[in-house]
């Protein structure tokens, strides 16, 4: 519930650390673990100030032992604490995925609900800043495919705080992805639209609900994280230049996916472009399109998706920017959709 009023523009990084601090204040069971999340305040700024405020009993700078400390978080969560643990880049999931998908995600199920796993795994996603193929991946679908965890990604600071609160309070493992290009770290550049008003009281953004970032009637643009901003930019251009009103859906929760909100919009508009920056095949964009097709919604033109192609993410900006989904690609796809008949 939103109990605050003053307007406070914040970055996602700040909103995350604020949510963490407020939950740590409220609940002594919340502890934070990860690499460089203490003294450094998190490579991506999302744990800034926590060590100073809560001390080394609650904020643990860990060795580079992701399997060990994420596994430990599962045990802490099973014992009734609420660990928030950071995997610095989602790209590193390969060294610790068992602890995530075979332990955290299945603890409730294997125990028949006796032992829950209220932990949050924060992890950075996304490229666009030249960090190459082991530091720029999104892996939305990798996590969205595997049952037992909830997966969220905010597109702006308001949602970041509300989703973080909801994630910490959830009885289940929540993977909290944050996109580097939205994080508000000056050294990474930041999409302006991600910096929003963040009420200073406690409020939750519900996990499992997509948002309507812009209402429209003519075409549905579906995105998440940074691609919401590509969709919004494309929608602006469509409105300005084509007289077309696009509805923009912010997926916000990758799992469980809120198909209803998406389907309702597509039923209304009859046209859809889905944009994500993860790899294409077996991706989230494909899942959205498959869900629309299964539902048998009549479309005025074939559904389209824009994703990172099925290639490793290249380093050179000349290559990376050519393949990374952006607003222009979104606009072009939307225009094609509008121009076509199914």
């Amino acid at each position, binding site marked *: 519930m939103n109990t605050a009023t003053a307007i406070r523009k914040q970055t996602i990084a700040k909103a995350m650390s604020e949510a963490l601090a407020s939950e740590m204040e409220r609940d002594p069971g919340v502890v934070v673990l990860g690499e460089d999340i203490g003294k450094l305040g998190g490579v991506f700024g999302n744990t800034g100030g926590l060590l100073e405020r809560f001390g080394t009993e609650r904020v643990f700078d860990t060795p580079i032992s992701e*399997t*060990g400390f994420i596994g430990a978080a599962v*045990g802490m969560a099973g014992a009734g604490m609420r660990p928030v643990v950071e995997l610095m880049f989602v790209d590193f999931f390969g060294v610790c995925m068992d602890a995530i998908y075979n332990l955290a995600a299945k603890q409730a199920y294997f125990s*028949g609900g006796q032992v829950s796993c209220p932990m949050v795994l924060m992890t950075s996603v996304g490229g666009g800043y030249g960090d190459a193929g082991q530091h720029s991946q999104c892996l939305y679908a990798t996590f969205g495919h595997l049952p037992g965890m909830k997966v969220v990604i905010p597109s702006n600071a308001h949602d970041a705080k509300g989703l973080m609160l909801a994630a910490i309070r959830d009885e289940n493992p929540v993977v909290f992805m944050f996109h580097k290009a939205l994080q508000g770290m000056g050294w990474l550049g930041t999409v302006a639209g991600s910096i929003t008003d963040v009420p200073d009281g406690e409020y939750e953004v519900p996990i499992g609900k997509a948002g309507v970032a812009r209402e429209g009637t003519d075409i549905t643009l579906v995105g998440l994280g940074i691609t919401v901003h590509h969709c919004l930019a494309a929608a602006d251009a469509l409105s300005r230049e084509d007289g077309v009103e696009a509805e923009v859906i912010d997926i916000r929760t990758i799992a469980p996916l809120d198909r209803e909100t998406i389907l309702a919009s597509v039923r209304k508009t009859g046209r859809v472009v889905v944009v994500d920056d993860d790899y294409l095949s077996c991706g989230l964009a494909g899942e959205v399109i498959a869900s629309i097709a299964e539902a048998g919604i009549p479309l005025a033109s074939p559904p389209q998706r824009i994703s990172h192609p099925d290639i490793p993410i290249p380093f050179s900006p000349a290559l990376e920017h050519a393949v990374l989904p952006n607003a222009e690609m979104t606009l072009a796809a939307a225009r094609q959709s509008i121009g076509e008949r199914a």
Partner: protein
Amino acid sequence: MSKTNQPHRLWMYENMVKSRAFEDAIKPAYLEGKTPRFNMARGPIPGEMHLSDGQEPCAVGVCAHLRESDTVTATHRPHHAAIAKGVDLDRMAAEIFGRDTGLSGGRGGHMHLFDASVNFACSGIIAQGMGPALGAAMAAKLRGSDAVAVAYIGEGAANQGAFHEVMNLASVWGAPLVIVIEDNGYGVSVSKASCTAVSRNADRAAAYAMPGIHIAGNDPDAIYDAAGEAIARARRGEGPSLIEIETSRLEGHFMGDQEAYRPEGEKDRLKAMDPIPRYRERLLADGIDAAELDACEKHAQQAVETAFAFARGSALPDPASAFTSVFVERTTA
């Protein structure tokens, strides 16, 4: 073994016998429907079945020191440890039979036994139970309780990355954790000697600045003593220990294993050293009444019979329950 531990010796004996009786009851039940040609998919208990025959001393010698509030994480071979930790035997049997009344309503099965009331959990992925045990230990420490956690692993698991990471973290954090290696000489068909750079995994504890204790003889009393010290140390807040126990697996890796990888005669030699009759003899030699031991055996046998009757008498779960407990509802806000 001090005199004051006499009751523990009987407890250990009874729990070893109970574990063996449990598995002796599992064997025919598991084979139901799987003959004439062995087919793991069939019968009332499908899937892999890893028996702990011969490894009972590792369970009782350690768990004799544990309280309900202490945590144990076990492996794919969990029955003996579960029993020694006090997991509800009826619901455990029902879980293994995939019944509605099972610990997890049949969702987990033999490799995923969880009993929250005694803080017992399993993982079927090698060495992966260590992380959660460390976490449970840290939860106790952070809350100022003197509870401890014990992570059981096999000697094969000591070559898995998770072992290294958790050993180091436990040491750096001073966690009240005891890692117990049940060294039965094999990981499936691969001998320890052929795949481990050192002959004693206990020696690896030095790489983490923690005590490493090696125990030969598969002897409940020796294990009891060493584990008692390690657990007391952990309770005192002095940090983790590694205990390596030489034990023996008297059956195949799983039921159906042909065991052709064993040297000629090994199995007979191991069976001749079965720790349970040996312990019975020792207790008798130490003056314990045969009647007391007989009573232990009878209790154990009865508990197992009750458990199997409970399991077999329970219904299979409603298919709809496959969809519940994937997520747990929030209880507080």
